[in-house]
């Protein structure tokens, strides 16, 4: 039997975005893979250098379009550190609210797409239905379904509308039993087990060697979650468990994501209670004046303010729905960041694809790559 290279992508139902998985096969067995990225490279890091600090938020929503608020949070943590701004506590709780809801929405999107890949049709409808409930909540306080532009340097744009917490609790009450339904749909199905069990194995040591993070690492039994290991925002005041599974395979990643959604619901109940009890400002006082004016024609005074504003470096790391995301913002004075660097978790998870795909069969590629939860927007940036 002769070997051959085949292209899966850029337009392929498996890819969920624009990328090309080049696979070398002999018969049905995968001998080597070589992901080809960059089809969605929009130069976000370069455009950021030409933009005002608050304008970069627009790009963050589009960097990872299934987890826009998490990326806004990531960028804001780094930019505020570079600008020496500290947001008020209520704003931090609101950001955690955003991030956890976004985690559930992102995982539901993953659930809808992944389970459809392995041949079960109805979970797509279930996942999209429940994701829309969360998007409706987002829409009620940010005004948009997917691209929010909600966070600002120094806090968030606006407070929650009246009655929001009750509506959010209703959604959470609805969601919790749904997770059980999802499990019944998938784990109760022989198709699911036959297509997922024991596939795409990558041990914890290999994960660390190749930079793999997030649910892929936790499915190998390693309890690493930046929310717990290196608490940012107000995660140190919240009570939750880090979801882990053993097996390091596709089913393990499914279990980790399901458990993460349950833990997010648990966090959200606490956050909503806190928000009910602690009204307050959502923007920091005494922001530098030029931060409020996007195009900054604020005259001589504003110019001098900018000149005198201290330089700084911002560094932040958050546990994004896909894994460990990093931002590195260099402030050299002036209204634009000098350099912005992002680390995308999916970028590293895809870079290691050779180590969890080789040896399996061609038909195993959709479940394995589905379990990685590829979001091309954040890989290519």
């Amino acid at each position, binding site marked *: 039997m002769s070997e051959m290279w085949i292209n899966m992508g850029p337009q392929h139902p498996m890819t969920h975005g624009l990328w090309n998985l080049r696979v070398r096969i002999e018969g049905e067995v995968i001998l080597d893979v070589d992901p080809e990225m*960059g089809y969605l490279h929009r130069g976000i890091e*370069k455009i950021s250098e030409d933009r005002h600090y608050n304008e970069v938020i627009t790009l963050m929503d589009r960097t990872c379009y299934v987890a826009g608020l998490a990326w806004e949070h990531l960028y804001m943590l780094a930019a505020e550190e570079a600008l020496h701004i500290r947001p008020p506590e209520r704003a931090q709780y609101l950001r955690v609210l955003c991030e956890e809801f976004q985690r559930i929405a992102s995982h539901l999107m993953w659930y809808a797409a992944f389970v459809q890949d392995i041949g079960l049709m109805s979970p797509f409808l279930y996942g999209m239905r429940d994701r829309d409930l969360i998007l409706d909540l987002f829409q009620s306080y940010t005004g948009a379904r997917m691209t929010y532009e909600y966070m600002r340097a120094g806090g968030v744009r606006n407070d929650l509308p009246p009655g929001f917490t009750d509506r959010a609790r209703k959604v959470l009450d609805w969601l919790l039993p749904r997770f059980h339904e999802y499990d019944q749909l998938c784990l109760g199905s022989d198709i699911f087990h036959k297509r997922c069990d024991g596939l795409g194995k990558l041990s914890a040591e290999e994960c660390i060697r190749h*930079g793999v993070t997030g649910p892929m690492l936790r499915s190998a039994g390693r309890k690493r979650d930046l929310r717990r290991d290196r608490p940012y925002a107000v995660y140190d005041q919240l009570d939750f468990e880090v979801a882990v599974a053993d097996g390091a395979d596709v089913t393990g990643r499914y279990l980790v994501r399901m458990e993460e959604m349950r833990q997010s619901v648990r966090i959200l109940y606490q956050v909503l209670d806190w928000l009910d009890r602690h009204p307050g400002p959502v923007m920091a006082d005494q922001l530098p004046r030029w931060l409020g004016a996007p195009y900054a024609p604020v005259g001589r005074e504003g110019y001098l303010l900018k000149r005198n504003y201290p330089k700084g470096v911002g*560094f932040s790391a958050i546990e994004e729905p896909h894994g460990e995301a990093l931002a*590195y913002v260099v402030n050299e004075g002036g209204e634009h960041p000098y350099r912005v660097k992002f680390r995308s978790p999916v970028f*590293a998870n895809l870079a290691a694809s050779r180590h969890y795909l080789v040896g399996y069969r061609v038909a195993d590629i959709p479940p394995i790559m589905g379990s990685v939860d590829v979001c091309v927007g954040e890989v290519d940036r």
Partner: protein
Amino acid sequence: MQTDELERTLRPSLGDRITSVEAFPDTAGRVRFRREAALDVFRSVHALGFHHLSTVGGIDWVDHREVFYILWSDDTRQYVVLSTDVPASDAHVESATPVWPSANWHERETWELVDITFDHHPDLRHLLTPDGYAFHPLLRSFKLHEPEELEVKARHV
């Protein structure tokens, strides 16, 4: 691990191969090293428990370029930043792939966007930009243009 502790651990074995260990917000510190000693520094830092390489990136400071490596240790639950300066005329540094295999794609990205060559990299080719793309967009000298000019540019690739 504090910054001074980091310096006390690294200084005896590395000596003047590291130029400074300085405080860096939210991390154990930033270790600046000479680029000739890159592999020694990588091995020493890896031995300290920083097994996870998060990212590699480059900054163009016009007169020189900076390469930074961000690492994570599961033992101390901290990040550490390594950074080295390379002259713009001769921008190359030893690849970190022998120590951290995960550096592979990050170095490819840094090579094509910031124009820093990584010596002995196993597979240094374009990742995000098309094959044969002649520009290094994250250099400060690369200015963003109006789309019409840009089309002309892209068609000449």
